[in-house]
């Protein structure tokens, strides 16, 4: 069938484009970490370093080779699953990352699972009850909350629920090696709420705007003038057309979460890749920093790819034009 063929073709094209984006990002990350003017080895070891130790570290970092060779070794390592050796603890980066990644993905999953539906529902209801007290209140609340930095929200929550006002929830998480995030439900509450507060207002505002646009469209008015029940107008006419923007919004926000986790994990000392990134930057652990940055970029590219494919699937106009 030509439709499927066209769709496959589209996905392949988008996938290639995503790979190109990732590739350029990898060059950028590499350039930023390895090829920037300045001596990484010296800045890691400090002024008092001996020439021997500097040379040793340079060899370890591969700084004695040409930039192109360095990049080639790094990127081919990425494809074979070898992300290098962490400078902080001499373990393979993949090993260090693995456990941390589970923590982060679990946190993002829970936060996304709660915040995306809430954001979408809040936005849709606001649009539906436009100009009502509910809409006005939501508008002001989401505007204010959307502006707040994650660490402001996180610390405020910590002040209220765990340190100063109440003492009902732990504000930091202390984990045992080899444990899994779901073993700490109480410790998860505050980080999850922080992420939800960071994402919901944003989602709700975009969702409201796109729903209002659809509710104002001619075909929704026509559906009303055809005498359709309001429920049918909403569910059969408005909602299907609101799906495409919803997917885009969701992808955008999950990607946004990826930035948010860095600060949130630092606030709550949550052992995910965000905190690991902060620690690695402090320790000048380049291989780990590069790996985490690439991972976050990959997450962004994949989310956008998924959103684009989903958009095509729910938009007959786009779908048929591909056939």
């Amino acid at each position: 069938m030509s439709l499927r063929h066209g769709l496959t073709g589209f996905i392949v094209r988008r996938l290639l484009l995503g790979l190109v984006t990732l590739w350029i990002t990898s060059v950028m990350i590499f350039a930023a970490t390895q090829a920037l003017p300045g001596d990484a080895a010296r800045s890691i070891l400090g002024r008092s370093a001996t020439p021997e130790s500097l040379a040793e570290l340079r060899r370890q970092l591969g700084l004695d080779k040409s930039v192109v060779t360095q990049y080639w070794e790094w990127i081919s390592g990425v494809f074979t699953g070898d992300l290098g050796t962490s400078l902080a603890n001499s373990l393979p980066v993949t090993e260090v990352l693995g456990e941390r990644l589970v923590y982060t993905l679990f946190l993002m999953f829970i936060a996304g699972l709660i915040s995306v539906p809430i954001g979408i529902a809040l936005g849709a209801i606001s649009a539906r009850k436009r100009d009502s007290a509910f809409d006005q209140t939501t508008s002001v609340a989401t505007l204010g909350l959307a502006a707040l930095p994650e660490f402001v929200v996180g610390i405020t929550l910590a002040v209220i629920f765990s340190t100063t006002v109440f003492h009902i929830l732990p504000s930091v998480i202390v984990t045992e090696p080899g444990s899994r995030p779901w073993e700490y439900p109480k410790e998860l509450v505050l980080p999850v709420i922080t992420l939800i507060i960071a994402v919901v207002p944003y989602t709700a505002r975009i969702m409201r705007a796109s729903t209002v646009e659809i509710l104002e469209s001619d075909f929704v008015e026509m559906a009303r003038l055809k005498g359709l029940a309001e429920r049918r107008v909403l569910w059969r006419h408005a909602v299907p057309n609101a799906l495409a923007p919803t997917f885009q919004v969701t992808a955008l926000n999950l990607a946004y979460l990826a930035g948010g986790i860095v600060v949130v994990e630092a606030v709550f000392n949550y052992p995910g890749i965000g905190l690991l990134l902060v620690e690695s930057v402090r320790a000048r652990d380049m291989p780990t920093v590069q790996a985490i940055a690439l991972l976050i970029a990959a997450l962004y590219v994949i989310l956008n790819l998924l959103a684009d494919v989903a958009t095509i699937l729910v938009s007959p106009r786009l779908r048929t034009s591909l056939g």
Partner: protein
Amino acid sequence: MTDVAVTDAVRIDLAEKQIRPWRLLLSTAWAQHRTKIGIGITLLLVGLAVFGRLVAPYSPDQGVEGQLPFAPPSSDAWLGTDNLGRDVLSRFLHGGLSVLLLSGLSTAFGMSLGVTIGLVAAYSPGRLDDLLMRTMDVFLSLPQIVFALVLAATVGPKLWLLVLAVGFTTMPRAARVTRGAAVEVVQRDFVRAAEAIGVPRRKILLSEVLPNISSPLIVETTLRMSFNVAVVAGLSFLGFGLQPPAADWGLMINENQNGLTLQPWPVLLPVIAIALLTIGTSLIGDGISRAAIGIERGRTGGE
């Protein structure tokens, strides 16, 4: 064919207005409570950050005599002391300027780059447009704070680097908004009219296109400012902004987070200030954006 101009944001009758578009935008924005509140809050915070140091009771670097670290509020130190026994109020009054300057600079830097790229892309033939915007997309694949951290890993916590990193990550977002708005303007016939009589390209962009996208750009600037305050303060909070013993809101939170149970003020004060600053700027942006939508609808529906 709309018979009347009706909008949920602002209701204005344009036929009566004999004023310049700029004044109209600002006065319509000002007519809304949220803009007034936003401007009030922002001015208060900016005033605090710029002039606060003049009324600070102590030098920000010196400990208060006879006070231990994390001392509660007293008559000597009205809001207590921090982790090194320094006066919280004084450090707070000194610590806003860096946040404000750094985020202001990076916003200005990023916006001017982004607006230029967005304008050029919108007015360029498909291929160059594509190339420019795809390049911007690559920059988008890393969250602002991650990009800044990657740079900090190599070069260390330098202030110029911070401005550069935050500015560079502001650029693709500004470029997208600019291009999005400008693409519609570029297609309109008054641009064709200018082309037909041979007005130079640069002049078309500056005098025909740019004034017509000024409202979304002002809104974007306030929004970016609000975000950049968060990023700059966030980086300081993570320890990659100003370095001790500097007085800086983000750094204050970082240094005193462990003493939260003993002495919440050195954390709470900057947290509240940053929250108000971001909320204030985004309220202004929202007010202007509502005003712009209202004027646009009044204009298209009014004829």
